[in-house]
């Protein structure tokens, strides 16, 4: 539980882990699990695919962030990483893969081609995969260095951490989530109060942002 993100919402009621218990929200616990267990589906379409392989291999080592389990079945993946030049013919395949992925799912457009068509301003090439599916992050570069990919994956973790879909679903009244699971503080309210207040601040009333659109955060930039 040394992870900084989870501890922001987690309060140890006794001050020690031995024999104690933790207070948190279901949302933050789920987010913490999800962000450290991202299963990417790499759609390697050209040279960006090679850079992704480098990112996954030992020198850069994506597994440091719990992302090393690349799956080539959309049913088992929650991050679609489109790495390379997408043609219109392949776009049909990509759209199908995206449709087959279970929620929650995220999409990264890796490199200039996936983001905007890159240098291929011509008839077979899709001018940015967001013509077809919503994109969470765009990585610049041709191809991007593994550092940039890792940076993007860290940004993705931050985004997952901020997810508030459970709370919004509860507020909207169509909760698929057991209501008791959200707040587990009765009886020990005093100690949990600061964390709860902090958490409540983040859950602003309103519609969930459009799927895949990152609001208020600039695109990932290369240093």
């Amino acid at each position: 539980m040394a992870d900084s993100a989870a501890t922001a919402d987690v309060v140890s009621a006794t001050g020690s882990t031995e024999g104690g218990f933790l207070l948190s929200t279901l949302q933050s616990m789920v987010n913490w699990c999800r962000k450290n267990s991202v299963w990417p589906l790499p759609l390697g379409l050209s040279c960006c695919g090679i850079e992704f392989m480098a990112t996954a291999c030992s020198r850069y080592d994506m597994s440091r962030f719990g992302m090393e389990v690349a799956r080539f079945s959309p049913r088992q993946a929650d991050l679609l990483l489109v790495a390379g030049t997408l043609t219109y013919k392949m776009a049909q395949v990509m759209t199908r893969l995206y449709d087959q992925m279970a929620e929650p799912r995220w999409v990264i457009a890796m490199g200039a081609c996936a983001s905007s068509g890159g240098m291929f301003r011509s008839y077979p090439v899709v001018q940015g995969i967001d013509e077809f599916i919503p994109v969470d992050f765009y990585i610049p570069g041709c191809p991007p260095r593994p550092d940039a990919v890792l940076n993007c994956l860290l940004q993705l973790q931050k985004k997952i951490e901020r997810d508030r879909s459970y709370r919004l679903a509860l507020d909207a009244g169509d909760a698929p989530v057991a209501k008791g699971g959200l707040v587990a503080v009765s009886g020990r309210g005093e100690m949990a109060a600061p964390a709860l207040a902090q958490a409540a601040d983040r859950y602003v009333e309103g519609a969930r942002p459009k799927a895949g659109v990152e609001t208020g955060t600039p695109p990932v930039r290369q240093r």
Partner: protein
Amino acid sequence: MSSIGYTNDAPPTVKTAVAYALSALGARWCDYAATGAAPRFRATPAALLEKARWVEAFATLKKEHGFDLLLDHSAVDYPDRTPRFTVVAVVENSTTHDVLLLKTRVADGEACPSLTPLFRSADWAERETYDMFGIPFEGHPELTRIYMPQDYDGWPLRKDFPMEGHLKFRD
């Protein structure tokens, strides 16, 4: 119109029997001297055929003169010309390594006779030509787009196809 001159006389590199057979089918030989191009780029003897004699010419070359290898099969779009498209095919005699280039002209929307019954290698080449130029090939066993999606709108290698910004195709 065409910058290439045409004559009834075959270039000296063409074997007499071949020259005679093609001339009998109404072929006119390209005279590249008029273009001023360096000869090394114009080394392949080329002949223009009527569309009606297209398949017959290749059948004769293949069966009687040993031109059994179809090297290339494509088309060129000349928007100013009538008929608009020039279909080009290159055949080789795999024994003597003589190479011949034959062309014919088809109008927009007009079908060109297919060479696929003669050469299996013409199959995909003709599908590609259809895909890029929209020239249908009569007698082709399965004339569908080969590169672009089946519902793609337009013929990308036509000269009037926009260089960029073609966004009519949306899923």
